[in-house]
């Protein structure tokens, strides 16, 4: 049973204590929300969980292995942050070609873009897209690798209601195949989650 256990996680950013002893156990197939006001450390928590920040107290175990010791942990999660990893001055198709290299697989552009109904923008520059469209593109990264853990930093921002429900479906099917999703949000999100971490 692949579960993510966080035990007494404390993290300093500079000289202030940002994460003050967080504990949670997230079983496979569950979605957790991280709620907190602006600046309360939600993004910090996600960065610790994706082992970008290595300087913390406490332990994080995935599948009973400490993520600090697990050299292959980086292959087990996908992090969609607030920046989109899209080059502004290139077109959508060129950006997807760059992603092909990073993810190491051929991308069937049309079927991928179909997910969020983005086929019409395939040759447009990223800079001419709306924020919502860019966010949808960024979320398409989730379809490019099948990993057990999804870390989503404020994924519903900018999305209209149609795309929101598409994303919710995506997360639900991820859960059904045994994946874990951890989502940060600062608004009262109308989402039925299996648990919450409140910062």
């Amino acid at each position, binding site marked *: 049973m692949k579960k993510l256990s966080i035990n007494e996680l404390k993290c300093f950013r500079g000289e202030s204590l940002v994460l003050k002893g967080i504990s949670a156990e997230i079983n496979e197939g569950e979605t957790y929300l991280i709620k907190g006001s602006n600046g309360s450390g939600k993004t910090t928590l996600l960065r610790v969980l994706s082992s970008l920040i290595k300087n913390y107290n406490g332990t994080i175990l995935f599948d009973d292995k400490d993520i600090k010791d697990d050299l292959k942990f980086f292959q087990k999660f996908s992090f969609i942050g607030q920046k989109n990893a899209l080059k502004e001055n*290139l077109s959508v198709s060129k950006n997807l070609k760059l992603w092909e290299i990073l993810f190491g697989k051929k991308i069937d552009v049309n079927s991928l873009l179909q997910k969020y109904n983005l086929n019409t923008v395939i040759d447009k520059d990223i800079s001419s897209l709306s924020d919502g469209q860019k966010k949808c593109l960024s979320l398409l990264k989730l379809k490019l690798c099948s990993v057990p853990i999804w870390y989503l930093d404020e994924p519903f921002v900018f999305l209209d209601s149609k795309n929101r429900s598409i994303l919710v479906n995506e997360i639900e099917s991820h859960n059904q195949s045994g994946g874990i999703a951890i989502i940060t949000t600062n608004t009262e999100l109308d989402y039925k989650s299996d648990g919450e971490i409140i910062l």
Partner: protein
Amino acid sequence: MKSLYDLINRDLKIAFFTSSNFLFTGSFYILVVVLIPFIFGSDSEQLRVIFKGIIWISISLSILLTLERIFYSDYEDGSLDLILQRYNSLEIIICAKFIAHWIINCLPLIVILPFLSLLFQLSFSDIFPILINLVIGSTGMVFVATFVSALTLGAKRTIFLKGIILIPLLVPFIIFGVDPHSWPILIALSMMSFVISIYASSYGLRLYGE
């Protein structure tokens, strides 16, 4: 190593797709060199001396102006996060940056140099020592520029600050580069900056993650 090849490939593709492709860097060098006779007059003897020097100015300018592109542009749009996530080894990422950046910014000058030297009536044997020094010196400069770029990721987009940090570090390469007999010293400098750069750049990237 597939990941090394992949990352280099990605950087080359980005350079090719955006305006900083080889044609443009090549034209930059040509245009700078073409300005020389207009500034200094058309006395061939003098021009030859100046040309050998201006080569080094143009390569230093190129390194200085493209400093941002090494890590900052990936950092800005979040691609750096993606790269750090997909590739566990910082050293591979840094080495890929070295090679890609050198190919995009230094290789055009080295390729064009023989043709440019024709403009100044210099034969290939004349510029061959310069070419060797340029190859070695430019690799050293790329190593230095990479770690400066990696360490200053947290600073805002200020070319002045990063330039002030970079220039004193480039001076030894320029000083020894201009002298045709100093290629052993240049090799030593480049190797030393390679080692420093690997440590310093990986430190900078790790700091970025924090």
